[in-house]
């Protein structure tokens, strides 16, 4: 029955990720006093892009052309193996927190290489900034994973989620809270949200992600945009299930999976709405202030590990 889980997770992530982006933009629009385009707008954009003629910019190589596919593939693999609607994963040996994180980093790296491959200043600029952020995020991320895995004795995602389900009091422990705080900062940095990167900017002084993908157009751009929204919903889904796993199915029972999908959607939507609401009040940080933010979250991660040892 784990095959069913994989299919459901893939469908849910692919179908609802653009809606999550639309919902977040809508929340933001409403809070800023605008009407907003409605939550279906990202899907309408994707449809429009898919119908456009593909474009091969001069002088780009196979790296540029395959990057969107690899990017989407990394997101699909993570969507298939992460415990989103059920802890029973088809590919249990891939469902490891380190593997999942490394897969998502692989997606970023292919996009950075594609940015450099264009040979424009914009591409190089975006790639340089993105890899800088990735390099600095990594310690925080892994230390937070360390903190999460200590009480369970494993970095297997299913095992961590299952342990939290079995002992709900863990959620309110200092380890869990500190690790959650550290992970939130990491997720903001990894998915390119405010205050680390502004997803709606096209100003060269501030863009990171948008600068890398500046040369993409048509169906390629649609894939990149879809992957970006999938990354966001995957990170939020993981965050939700690592710290608030209730509603997730523990096996492959279709009924429980049917109940787990709305639970996941509600959790991710709530987190997304919170993130969008917070972004209204935040300005983008200067790139060279980002390390300070990440250092802060790194310290929280270290404290979480310390707490897991000294308070256990």
């Amino acid at each position, binding site marked *: 029955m784990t095959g069913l889980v994989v299919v459901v997770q893939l469908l849910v992530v692919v179908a609802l990720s653009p809606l999550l982006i639309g919902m977040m933009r809508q929340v933001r629009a409403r809070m800023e006093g605008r009407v907003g385009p409605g939550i279906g707008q990202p899907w309408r954009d994707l449809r429009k892009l898919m119908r456009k003629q*593909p474009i091969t910019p001069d002088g780009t190589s196979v790296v540029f052309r*395959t990057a969107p596919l690899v990017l989407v593939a990394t997101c699909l*693999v993570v969507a298939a193996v992460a415990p989103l609607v059920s802890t029973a994963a088809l590919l249990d040996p891939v469902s490891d927190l380190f593997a999942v994180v*490394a897969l998502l980093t692989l997606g970023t790296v292919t996009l950075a290489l594609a940015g450099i491959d*264009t040979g424009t200043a*914009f591409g190089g600029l975006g790639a340089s900034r993105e890899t800088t952020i990735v390099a600095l*995020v990594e310690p925080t991320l*892994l230390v937070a994973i360390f903190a999460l895995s200590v009480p369970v004795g494993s970095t297997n995602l299913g095992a961590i989620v299952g342990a939290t389900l079995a002992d709900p009091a863990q959620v309110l422990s200092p380890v869990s809270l500190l690790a959650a705080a550290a992970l939130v900062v990491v997720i903001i940095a990894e998915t390119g949200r405010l205050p680390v990167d502004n997803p709606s900017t096209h100003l060269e002084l501030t863009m990171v992600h948008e600068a890398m993908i500046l040369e993409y157009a048509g169906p390629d751009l649609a894939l990149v945009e879809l992957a970006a929204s999938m990354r966001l919903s995957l990170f939020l889904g993981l965050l939700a299930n690592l710290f608030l796993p209730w509603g997730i199915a523990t096996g492959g029972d279709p009924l429980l999976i049917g109940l787990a999908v709305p639970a996941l959607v509600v959790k991710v939507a709530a987190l997304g709405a919170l993130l969008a609401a917070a972004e209204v009040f935040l300005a983008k940080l200067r790139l060279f202030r980002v390390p300070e933010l990440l250092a802060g979250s790194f310290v929280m991660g270290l404290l979480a590990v310390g707490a897991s040892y000294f308070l256990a």
Partner: protein
Amino acid sequence: MTALHAGLGVALGAGSLTALAGLLVPRRARTTVVGAGLAITGAAALLAGIAAMTGRSASFAVPDLLPLFGLLFTVDPLAGVFLAITGGVTVAVGIYGIGYCRGPGDGQGHDHGGLDARGVQAVLPLFVLAMLAVPVAASVGTLLLCWELMALTSLLLVIAEHRRRPTVASAGRWYAVMTQLGLVAILIGLSVFAGHAVDGSFAALRAAAPTLTPAVAALVFVATGIGFGSKAGIVPLHAWLPRAHPEAPSNVSALMSAAMVNLGVYGIVRVGFDLLGDTGAAWWWLLVLGLGALSAIYGILQAAIGTNFKRLLGNSTTENMGLILIGVGAAGFFGTAGDLDLAALALAAALLHLVNHAAFKTLLFTSAGSVVQATGRRDLDELGGLNTGMPATTAAFGVGALAASALPPGAAFVSEWLLLQALIHGLPATGVAGAIVLPLAVAAVALTAGLAVATFVKAFGIGFLAKPRTPEAASATEGPASMLVGMGVAGVACVALALAPTLVLPTIGSVAGATVGAGDPVRIHGLTIELVGTLGATVGSLSPLMLTLALLIGTVLALAGARALATRRAARAARLWDCGGGPLSARMEYTATSFAEPLQRVFDDVLRAEHDVDVSHYDESRYLVQTVEYRRRVPDRIEKRLYDPVLRLVAAWGQAGRKLATGSVHRYLGYGFYTLCGLLVLLVVTR
């Protein structure tokens, strides 16, 4: 006659004959014969190493060859790992060297400084033989002899191109001095050890280890650690490494970086785990772990901001040796804390990373060597666009870069995953010291991994993709077929290690388990690596092959989805976005320097880059700028703080010494007279 004996015999015979052939064969066929001979030597050593790892052992003694101490060799599983690595690297480098050493010569103004000269070609096999002999040496005298032979032959190879570049001589001097000081440190450590034993054989040392006082044991460990650590390029003894590696010919760089530095790790493991046995204290291993973490971060930071292609790879070697020593240190630390299973896991992770590093560093150095030979440029800022002229080399470097950046589906991902698992699971077992050290070690590994990603995105992206930045880079073409085959061998090894570590990990795991005195730390279940916990339960699992297959399926799904949904219109070529300012030139691209600028700024407190802006004005008005010149240099700060004062002191001492030598013969006779009198007085007083 077992496979082990046969392999060792063939390796020794083929290596010696190859050295002889390097001297005798005429220039036209010389590199081919030597390359083929090296490949045979390497293959035989690889087979012997594999046979040794699977539990066969052998001993050879030549007691009368040298006075005072005979030669004594023992092949055990630990030695087998290093035999196999050196052998494998030699196969790839030998084949690569056939074309590389011949150089692109033929009067194109590119003559290669005579890498096909008799001396170089004869010393190369000797260097390989010395590297093969070090791990099987089984007495103090034998080890030191082989070590010195290795140091001397590698030094000769480093300075092979000294006629072409003046910087080679300086690199050679640094290497010579540091490697000899390292030898002195090892000599002191092992002599003290041997002084407490019956004789200098390793068996006698093992027997004597429990009788050592903690202070003597610590002296032995630290002294040998300094010597072996300097060979492994560990901070702060790394100063020779980023000098010698870029200046050596690329096939020699590959041998040194992928095989020779490993022997430093071998020495630490041999002395710490095997010879000194259970006498180790926790602080030894925390020292190793700490220096490993420092080296990993410092090495990769230098690589992340560096622009010299080969120097960057040399710095990355320091980083990887650091990661390996984190594993070795953690293994020792867990061992002193009593958790032998975990110690075996950490050591297995370190040894697997050693194998992976050898594979991808061979690939990276050989492909970088091809680039340098094809373009004559070694600065990343002057390369770029090589993927059109050198597609195979680009692909090879891409595979190597993926392997080196610890991302799936690369080779280093598996070993770093194992290392992280070992560190994470050590937390409950090691008390307060572990609770402080292990999270920091995880953070160090993580920061290293992150910076390695940035480094290799830079090296691959700026070096090989985008537009060529110089005419040489634009007109670069692939080298001879033998170079491509050599790279191909290393590339296949990288891919195999990435996809099927399940083939090598059980063997390496059992070697690690045997070294620390525990069982196998990992279990292979089909395509999956499973970690065995203290209760025999599975505490973690990873399947690199399944992961890669899943990625492939994902890519196919994405492609199919895009094909099904997207428009069927043919793609159109279009101009790049140039802000309406006309076609973009290569000068508008990001360079390696600009790519690394944010990182350099973030780590400015550590790196302390030196900026220099020169603005010159027109004579008529100082408001009109004529030229602006900007220079940035990132000096090695540890070197500046640690080595410069010592060098200054030595120089001052030498200057002071000159005052004694005025040129007056009477004075020199006086020195002799007073020294003699002084000695006589001393003799009288002490008798």
